[in-house]
């Protein structure tokens, strides 16, 4: 029922889009909508980087420019037809996207923003200076493309752009809702946890940048044909900021937001050209802001000072619009002010704001409904192979040094397959450091770790995770903005073999894998008792449930060895009982467990062997009862007599 409605709405929208040129007949408006569509393609791509992976890219105007110039140069030098220039623009720009992503291996946040800014600036300089290729500041003039021997006119080209927009929309939408999209989103939620779920942060960052750049390249080429003239100054810093503004104003992580954002940044300059119109709009805006600030003050939601800033700002803007003869010169200031406003008062963008106001459910929740409706098949928890009794994990002489501090000093730990191995010790004794060494987050200063007979040296966290070591974190590292179900599905990422083409075309392989993993993820949630909360965002779950969700996510990796870092911390007594049952069941499935815990009753009732760390050294090891009676252990926990 709901689906039918959506399909009808989509058909009507597409028909309207295609009939628009016929309806207006005005080439100016046709060109305007064409530009909006082209910008929307860039924004679909930019949203992957900004909205999903959470990185700030200031290089997208540069990428847009590379696309435009790839098309321009190919046409000017070789007279290439459109079915060569578009793919070439996508390929070349995607390659540049990969280069841009290289520094992303090491840096994030403001550093990455500066890197992308430098990249954009270099591109602009190169376009300007490499006159033998690009004609420099002169620019390149070209005509509309020819298709099947027929030179497209303005309307026909509009249709071509519309088709490209729809293709990009479907492509981006499918990619972002697949395991690839979940991987991108996981990077933003918690890079460390992504790596420990076998989703290589670096690999997927590069992937995100490449896809994003490819779309920018396509849009750039379309833009070149659309304007019929390209010059270096179009692809500058302001353009980049405009793209970012469009994304945050429209709303991150939605395609509607990108379309809306594109419309705004194309229409706004036109609005500023019409001074009379702008005066009306700015006065109305000031009134709205003043009223909403008043409401916020009355409800005690904002302090006077905080509420005054936007009010003063918008009144100043309105006043300014009456003072000035022309707004065109102040265009950038207006954009700047809008950016400030959006960043602080409209963080989820217009789409997010409307969604919140109307209390709409996102697709994550409906996905969860669908998954829970599917019939479970078999056991969600996989059985770990291998014969019990052998050594699964051997760590020898582990030394972990931070500056002068030895967090771990020559520690040996051997874990037998199929057992629960306790790791205890006072705070700061090196337990979590040990976890981090075992999962490859820290590279030990000395010593070797071998798992299932293979040495772990030189392996990355994600490789270690895929080889069968899963973990939870002492301070919960969930992907907060993703639903519980999606969190577990990130853990199941390894069970997808589909590539980009499978995802984009919804080939049978992807559809089958997607269905199977949804069912399994649901089964795992049921196993830890979170089935009812599958559609809830992870950050909204209560603390105890978050810990259980982490266990479900870790189990999704089909681990041989599961590291639990203080799973009972902050849990109530009944919750702990539940946890004990869960850990028992995990053991029954043949999964080996290393358990760090401060609740001694938990440790004593579950563990087969216990190792005790103190100041980075192993001071005791043995059966739980032996360890409990050990003098050194008692001294470490309670303090010894002064000697």
């Amino acid at each position: 029922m709901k689906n039918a409605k959506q399909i009808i709405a989509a058909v009507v929208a597409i028909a309207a889009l295609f009939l628009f040129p016929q309806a207006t007949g005005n080439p100016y408006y046709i060109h305007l909508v064409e530009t909006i569509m082209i910008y929307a393609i860039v924004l679909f791509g930019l949203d992957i980087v900004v909205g999903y992976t959470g990185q700030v890219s200031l290089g997208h105007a540069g990428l847009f420019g590379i696309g435009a110039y790839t098309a321009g140069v190919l046409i000017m030098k070789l007279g290439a037809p459109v079915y060569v220039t578009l793919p070439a623009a996508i390929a070349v720009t995607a390659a540049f996207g990969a280069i841009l992503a290289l520094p992303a291996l090491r840096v994030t946040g403001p550093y990455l923003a500066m890197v992308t800014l430098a990249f954009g600036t270099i591109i602009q300089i190169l376009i300007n200076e490499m006159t033998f290729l690009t004609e420099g500041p002169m620019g390149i003039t070209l005509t509309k493309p020819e298709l099947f021997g027929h030179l497209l006119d303005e309307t026909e080209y509009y249709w071509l752009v519309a088709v490209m927009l729809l293709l990009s929309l479907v492509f981006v939408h499918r990619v972002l809702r697949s395991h690839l999209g979940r991987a991108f989103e996981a990077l933003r939620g918690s890079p460390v946890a992504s790596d420990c779920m076998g989703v290589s942060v670096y690999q997927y960052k590069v992937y995100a940048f490449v896809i994003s750049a490819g779309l920018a390249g396509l849009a750039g080429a379309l833009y070149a044909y659309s304007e019929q003239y390209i010059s270096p100054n179009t692809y500058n810093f302001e353009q980049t900021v405009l793209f970012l503004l469009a994304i945050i104003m429209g709303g991150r992580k939605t395609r509607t937001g990108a379309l809306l954002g594109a419309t705004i940044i194309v229409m706004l300059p036109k609005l500023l050209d019409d001074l009379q119109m702008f005066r009306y709009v700015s006065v109305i805006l000031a009134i709205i802001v003043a009223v909403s600030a008043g409401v916020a003050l009355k409800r005690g939601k904002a302090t006077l000072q905080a509420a005054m800033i936007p009010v003063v700002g918008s009144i100043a803007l309105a006043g300014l619009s009456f003072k000035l003869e022309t707004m065109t010169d102040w265009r950038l200031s207006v954009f700047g002010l809008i950016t400030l406003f959006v960043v602080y008062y409209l963080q989820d963008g217009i789409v997010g704001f409307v969604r919140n106001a109307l209390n709409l459910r996102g697709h994550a929740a409906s996905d969860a409904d669908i998954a829970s409706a599917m019939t479970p098949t078999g056991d969600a928890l996989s059985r770990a192979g291998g014969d019990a009794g052998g050594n699964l994990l051997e760590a020898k002489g582990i030394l972990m040094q931070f500056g002068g501090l030895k967090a771990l000093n020559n520690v040996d730990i051997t874990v037998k397959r199929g057992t629960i191995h306790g790791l205890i010790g006072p705070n700061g004794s090196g337990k979590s450091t040990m976890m981090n060494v075992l999962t490859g987050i820290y590279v030990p200063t000395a010593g070797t770790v071998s798992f299932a007979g293979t040495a772990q040296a030189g392996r990355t966290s994600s490789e270690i995770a895929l080889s069968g070591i899963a973990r939870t974190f002492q301070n919960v590292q969930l992907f907060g903005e993703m639903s519980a179900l999606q969190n577990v599905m990130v853990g199941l990422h390894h069970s997808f073999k589909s590539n980009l083409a499978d995802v984009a075309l919804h080939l049978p392989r992807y559809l089958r894998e997607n269905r199977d993993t949804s069912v399994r993820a649901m089964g795992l949630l049921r196993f830890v008792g979170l089935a009812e909360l599958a559609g809830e965002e992870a950050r909204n779950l209560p603390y105890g449930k978050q810990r259980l969700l982490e266990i479900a996510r870790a189990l999704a990796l089909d681990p041989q060895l599961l590291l639990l870092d203080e799973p009972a911390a902050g849990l109530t007594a009944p919750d702990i009982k539940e946890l004990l049952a869960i850990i028992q069941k995990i053991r029954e499935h043949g999964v080996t467990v290393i358990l760090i815990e401060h609740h001694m009753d938990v440790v004593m009732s579950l563990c087969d062997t216990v190792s005790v760390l103190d100041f980075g050294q192993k001071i005791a090891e043995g059966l739980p009862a032996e360890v409990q009676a050990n003098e050194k252990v008692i001294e470490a926990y309670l303090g010894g007599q002064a000697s």
Partner: protein
Amino acid sequence: MQILTQLVFSGIALGMIYAVIAFGYQLTFATSDTLNFGQGDALMLGAMVGLSLVGLGVNYWLMIPIVCVFGALQGAFVERIGVRPAIKIKSEFGWIMSTIALGIIFKNVAENLWGRDDLKFPSPLPEAPLHFLGANVLPMEILVIVGAVGMMLAVEFFNRKTIYGKAVVATFNDRDAAKLMGINTGLVITFSYALSSMSAAFAGVLIAPLTLTGATMGAVLGLKAFAVAIIGGLTSGMGIILGGIILGVAETTTGFYLSTGYKDVPGLVLLLIVLAVKPAGLFGKSAIKKV
């Protein structure tokens, strides 16, 4: 050889300007882990205000302290409007975008107030070059070097020797602990922004007589100074002087031997390489990631 010495000398002067701007990045990064993406525009505003003051007949030397006060106010403004709300909601994206937005606004306002053309800033010192090691050196270049080093030393002295400076250092070491010790960390952060923009404005009036002054002069300077700040390490003190000199000389030589069009490229490429290879900087210490 003579030309090379000359290029090296102007490179050093240019490098010191980068070092001063980079120093500004370090100041705010130290107290609040944030940067002003509009640092280059702070420099431009300083130069523009200085130019107007000189145009009104104010003596160059008298103008400098006025510009410094202006720079400090401008920095405090950026912190209050752009950075403080973002720190409060712990949004990295927030302060990046808002300092960029403020930078754009400043640039646009400058374009409208002072026009879009580059202007000549009258030199306070004679423009006849001095002869030094067989090379021609402008007296202004010497002033730039002396002024830049003096500025950085003064701020360092302040941080190390006065009680207010200790508050800055304490905030840098542990913001929450400093707050619990009764330090108004918010004020310290505002103050660091004021100092940061003040050094940028000061750098602006130093460099202006050597180059042209215009609304767009800041953007690339700010970006390249970031490269210097990274090379020197965002948290380590004087590596930026060396970083500045490396970049300045690389640039003047590229400009001379290759093409002036490409003179910005080495700095930007250097930034990309350093961040891709050793993001903690050549002199910085990498922090340990806690999980």
